[in-house]
């Protein structure tokens, strides 16, 4: 029966009804609306500002996408992000530049731990991912609150390299000029993309899809499904770690509660990017598209002068119309 539905319709409509292309289409529409509303959209300054605003959600969404494709779900990603910011700002001492490296090492180790703990729960103990990560989200939050009950903390001066490289003292002139065009946030996102590019060409990348698509089949094919799911969680933690670097550099402080709202937003971005919540299907890179769509919606609302009180309401409606619209048309076409 699948063959039948596939061969229906004109090539163009078929293209539109692929989840990926419809996400791409929505992104283009959002961009056009945004360009119309925002007069200075193409100025370097505003492009940099956009990238800075989008990068954290993009990173979180890509990490989340890996977990979801592997058949899991991470409800703790926001809490993990908060935790990493708190650890970074606790280890760093303002006047000792070397502590910046310690902070990076310690936090990276903790990120790996976070991934491993989630991975053990999902992969090895076979507890439903929603339950595991809901529980761990409170653990991460608890540790973060212990370290930093109120927002604050210290950072070293050079840490701003992850946000605005030119403001770091003694930075080479080349990087300083480059920073005017290529903000560090973009580089962090590119690092994330490169990471997945490499992984997707190894066994692990293939197995992430296999396990999410049909765990039983993957298992009998000799794939270590538990290990694969754990590696997905660890990769997710690395993406969250990258986002944490940006946050701390931007805000110069850690905050145990800043990440909370980002969890659901990252999951939404994954879905908007055309990735199946049931796993195995969709492109990790399209989490980036999904995240951009969500962020553009908030921007459009901001520029459209909608009263404060209605902003969230309107953004919800836009997301539903943008996502459900094509899906609804597609459903009617494929109804059988």
């Amino acid at each position, binding site marked *: 029966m699948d063959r039948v539905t596939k061969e229906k319709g004109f090539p163009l409509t078929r293209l539109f009804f692929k989840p990926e292309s419809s996400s791409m289409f929505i992104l283009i529409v959002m961009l056009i609306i945004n360009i119309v509303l925002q007069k200075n959209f193409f100025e370097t300054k505003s492009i940099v500002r956009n990238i800075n605003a989008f990068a954290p959600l993009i990173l979180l969404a890509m990490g989340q996408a890996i977990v979801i494709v592997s058949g899991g779900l991470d409800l703790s990603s926001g809490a993990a992000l908060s935790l990493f910011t708190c650890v970074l700002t606790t280890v760093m001492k303002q006047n000792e530049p070397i502590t910046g490296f310690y902070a990076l090492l310690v936090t990276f180790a903790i990120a790996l731990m976070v991934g491993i703990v989630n991975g053990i729960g999902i992969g090895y103990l076979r507890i439903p991912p929603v339950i595991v990560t809901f529980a761990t989200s409170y653990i991460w939050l608890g540790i973060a609150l212990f370290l930093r009950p109120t927002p604050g903390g210290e950072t070293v001066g050079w840490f701003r390299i992850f946000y605005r490289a030119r403001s770091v003292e003694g930075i080479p002139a080349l990087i300083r000029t480059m920073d005017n065009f290529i903000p560090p946030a973009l580089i962090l996102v590119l690092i994330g993309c490169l990471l997945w590019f490499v992984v997707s060409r190894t066994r692990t990348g293939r197995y992430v899809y*296999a396990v999410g698509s049909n765990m039983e*089949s993957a*298992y009998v094919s000799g*794939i270590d499904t538990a290990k694969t799911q754990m590696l997905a969680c660890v990769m997710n933690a690395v993406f969250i770690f990258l986002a944490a670097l940006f946050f701390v550099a931007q805000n110069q402080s850690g905050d145990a509660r800043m990440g909370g709202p980002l969890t659901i937003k990252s999951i939404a971005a994954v879905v908007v990017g055309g990735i199946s919540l049931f796993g195995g299907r969709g492109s990790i890179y399209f989490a980036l598209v999904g995240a951009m769509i969500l962020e553009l919606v908030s921007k459009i609302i901001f520029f459209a002068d909608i009263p404060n009180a209605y902003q969230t309401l309107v953004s919800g409606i836009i997301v539903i119309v943008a996502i459900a619209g094509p899906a609804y048309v597609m459903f009617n076409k494929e109804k059988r």
Partner: protein
Amino acid sequence: MKNEIILEAKGVKKCFGGVVALSNGNLRCRKGRITGLLGANGSGKSTISKIIAGVYKPDGGEIHYNGRIVHYRNPHEARQDGIALVFQNLSLVPDLTVWQNVVLGIERNRGLFLDDEGARLLAREILEELYPGFDVERKVSELSPGEMQVVEVAKALAANPQLLILDEPTASLEQAQVRSLFACMRTLAQKGVAMIFTSHRLWEVMEICDEVTIFRNGEDVATIDFDTEEKDPEKIIGYITGEQRKTVVAVNHGKASGDVLLRVKVKSKTRDKFLDDVSFELHEGEILGIGGLAGQGQEELMYALAGSYPNVRCEIELKGKKIRLHRPQDAIRHSILLVPGDRQREGLFLDHSVYDNAIFPRLGLRGHPLWIPEREYRRMCEEAVRILSIKTPGVDAPVNTLSGGNQQKVVVARWLSFDVQVLLLADPAKGVDVGAKRDLYEYIVKLAREKKIGVLLYASDNEEFVEYCDRLLIMYEGQIVATLQGDEINDDAITAASMRVR
């Protein structure tokens, strides 16, 4: 050395929960020989295959492989040791492509990254023998069940096995594919590969196997070596069922006796390759077969009549009255009821109980009471279990604990309490053993004759048409190309008509 024993299983035991699946399993395989494994559903033949391949751990007994005792912890270890299993419930990953599936678990690297070109080449090479012209770039979820089975075989071959276990590989294949599979198996046998082959189609086992071992109630009851003993199907069936029983003489090929029950005219809205232009009449009490090569629109026709194939315009008259079939509910309300072939995917809620599955379609009826009349339904369900002699510990047992044949009976059972007019059977005996298949069909024939029900039957095995159909329509590319009646329905005629030889 040829004919050297490669595998010997001795006294293998296995229990699932409290149920004994295998009490004393013995099996011997030799290099370059094909051992047939026969037995009813639930006789333990699937279980012993899976134990040998490392899917299950045995509770007792020994397995000697290449002269040493082996304990595999998972199928991967067995595969690395040269034992490959072609799974009955396919081990393919739907969202990956064909070639990705063929090398799944045994990928090779080229440098840091995976060697995708090599994998494509390997997949193409293996599939060229089994199914010339197969596109390895397609996703497995887009394949037909027959094509998936071919890929499954290719996947097992990719590991270069010394012992290949084929667990009902032919159930969803059409005859031409079965032929190429057999040819491939013979080539492998010449190379010295030992094979274990299971199938419910006796003629296949007779044709391809060098010896058979028959299982009944968790034990091996007989081993027949075809080199020294003659191939006697009656004797084999006797071992399988445990009773000496003659093959039933083909159910009388009655003429279409009753009045016209259903007049069908189906035309596709767009030019559909699968269901183009079909019209026929179904009489009361008639069993009408829909045959032909696999995938010529037979299943699509069934779905159209069940109201779940949107791409066609149907003009349907039931007892002279025009009816509209837009949704499955429409068909159910007119008592046109479908028994889908793929019970695991379309017919059943596998995790739910027999009872839940049996009453489920009633809940969607117009005017169904708000409160479910549990007591009445339980009674109905228990009666259906009795009538169809479904082997289950109770109506509350989850369906996935039953064997394949009994699962299919549950699908039939849920229509029993309806006032059936037309029964659509889409390959109902797929993966059902000889005995249960006979039970099921005999019951359906009886039902059709007594209650004047029209039955539309699609089967992937021509034998079922020969035995049970009054009339047979042959489909080709979405159209009916031939009609066979009475004694014309035999294997040769069906094959000839399907291939459009005449």
